[in-house]
């Protein structure tokens, strides 16, 4: 499980990977918050319930939901308990704290060029963020 930042002319982009879909989603969230900024000591827990027509839409929903929470509460998240059912339903508890220092303000995760690729026991996706 991991992520890396990749170059994009206008915006920010990450590639994330994991050995399960759950891990991929956690890696993508970590990648996104590595761009936004680190959390202070975890003091808040927030729960999310999402469903989407497919796994790609679920990934975008997941990241945009986290962005909304982060924006609303000026928080960053570092702890993730997450469960995905059938690739289209997600329930999660995320833990985090106040942003220590904001590095970037991301407007949204986009669908551009988004595809979750599965090869043997590895899931990979690249996400472009509008900044």
């Amino acid at each position, binding site marked *: 499980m991991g992520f890396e*930042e*990749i*170059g*994009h*002319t*206008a*915006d*920010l982009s990450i590639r994330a990977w994991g050995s399960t879909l759950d891990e991929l989603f956690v890696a993508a969230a970590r990648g996104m918050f590595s761009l936004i900024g680190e959390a202070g000591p975890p003091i808040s827990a927030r729960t999310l319930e999402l469903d989407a*027509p497919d796994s*790609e*839409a679920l990934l*975008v*929903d997941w990241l*945009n939901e986290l962005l*909304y929470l982060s*924006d*609303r509460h*000026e928080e960053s998240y570092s702890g993730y308990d997450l469960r995905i059912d059938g690739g289209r339903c997600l329930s999660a508890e995320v833990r985090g704290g106040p942003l220590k*220092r*904001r*590095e*970037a*303000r991301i*407007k*949204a995760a*986009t*669908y*551009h*060029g*988004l595809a979750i690729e599965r090869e043997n026991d590895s899931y990979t996706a690249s996400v*472009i963020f*509008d*900044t």
Partner: protein
Amino acid sequence: MAFNVSDLKRIDQYRYEIPAGYTENMRVPARLYADEDIMAEAAKDRSLEQLVNVAWLPGIVGFALAMPDVHEGYGFPIGGVAATDMTDGVISPGGVGYDINCGVRLLSSNVDADQVRPYLPRLMDAVAGAVPAGMGRGGDVRLRSGKLDDALEGGAQWAIQAGFGEAADGDRCEENGRIGRARAGAVSPRAKERGKDQLGTLGSGNHFLELDEVAEVYDAEAADAFGLSPGQLVLQIHSGSRGLGHQVCTDFVRSFQSVVQRERYQLPDRELVCAPIASEEGQDYLAAMSAAANFAWANRQIMTHLLRRAFENELLEKLLKLHLSVVYDVAHNVAKVERHQVAGRVRELCVHRKGATRAFPPGHEAVPAAYRRIGQPVLVPGDMGRASYVLRARQEAMDETFGSCCHGAGRALSRTAARNRVDARELRRDLGEQGVEVRAGSLKGLAEEAPVAYKDIHQVVDVVVGAGLAAKVARLRPIGVVKG
């Protein structure tokens, strides 16, 4: 990723076309306004591939267009223009983007830059202190839900009536700072939640406040009409609809995914999701996006007010009696219902401008009366080191580009590449030596916005002027920049 340059047909010095047959799903050809260098750069990333995808949009009319500041975006390229038919065409949130009505407002002053230069650091502190920027949260202007609805439907006009400005300000805005078809009820509670404390705030990324000197006037008559003269101090505000607009786009990109399935559209890219304009979903998006555009106009209007107040509070006021007037205010990211002549027939179209400005010619009724003889001011901000331009729109823009022109220099480097290449402290020192005083929310953000990250504004403007879309009125030289 790269585009095959040999598939581009050169029409003349500043126009390239990609025929509709390039991919089987293109409904119209694509056209790029560029010189050889800009074309070659555009072919290196996904800009042209994205432009070809735009040509797929159901109901698209004429050409999928790209301006010379074109660069890779998501869905649409930045610098893209697409007009769709109001009866059988679609509207696409990706053709507007997340920062709905991100735009530029130019303010003129009654003093010369030389008069304020001795006080510049203090003036910059006053400017930076007046408008909450960058990483911070909301501003001083907090609204109850009812008032927010008024802002969403009233735009800059609402802000002026609420005491944030002067009556004449609204007349000098595209759409007079208010799109009438906005409906506050079409904006989600979540979007309103994100926006309610963000009026009068700059935001981060490429948003800025800039003090400039009018470095050169090319067209004395037009400059006089716009209230610009050589040596004058002017200000630019570059900002948009903040979290409210981002959420409106997120909401509709999400909800349109199912519309695409219902309509059985075969999308070349999911970020190009769209809905028939005539459908309930299409109308809801048009109403919500227009409301977000109004929010952005209210935002720039309130920032104008905050800047005026800062200048008044500053001791300088007593020495200089400084006053700021609105020259013009243009939207960069918006879709609007406009009437255009297509093949000899007037048609009602939905013109998507994603990183492009409206550019209506002399005589057009939407151009403020004071400028109608000259043509609409087209504001083209460049990077913080080089220059910005004030242009005036020409009839050719109406004939060829649905009354559209470029919106800036356009990025040349990714943020990552800019950060790797630029030392922000050195940049600030170098800019200082060039006479540009910088206030930045973060060093990282400053490095990402370095001049080297942008195309050469002079070259971009030469293309639109050479192609006849607009004419030069004045060039501005930055003297002070507040980056969000």
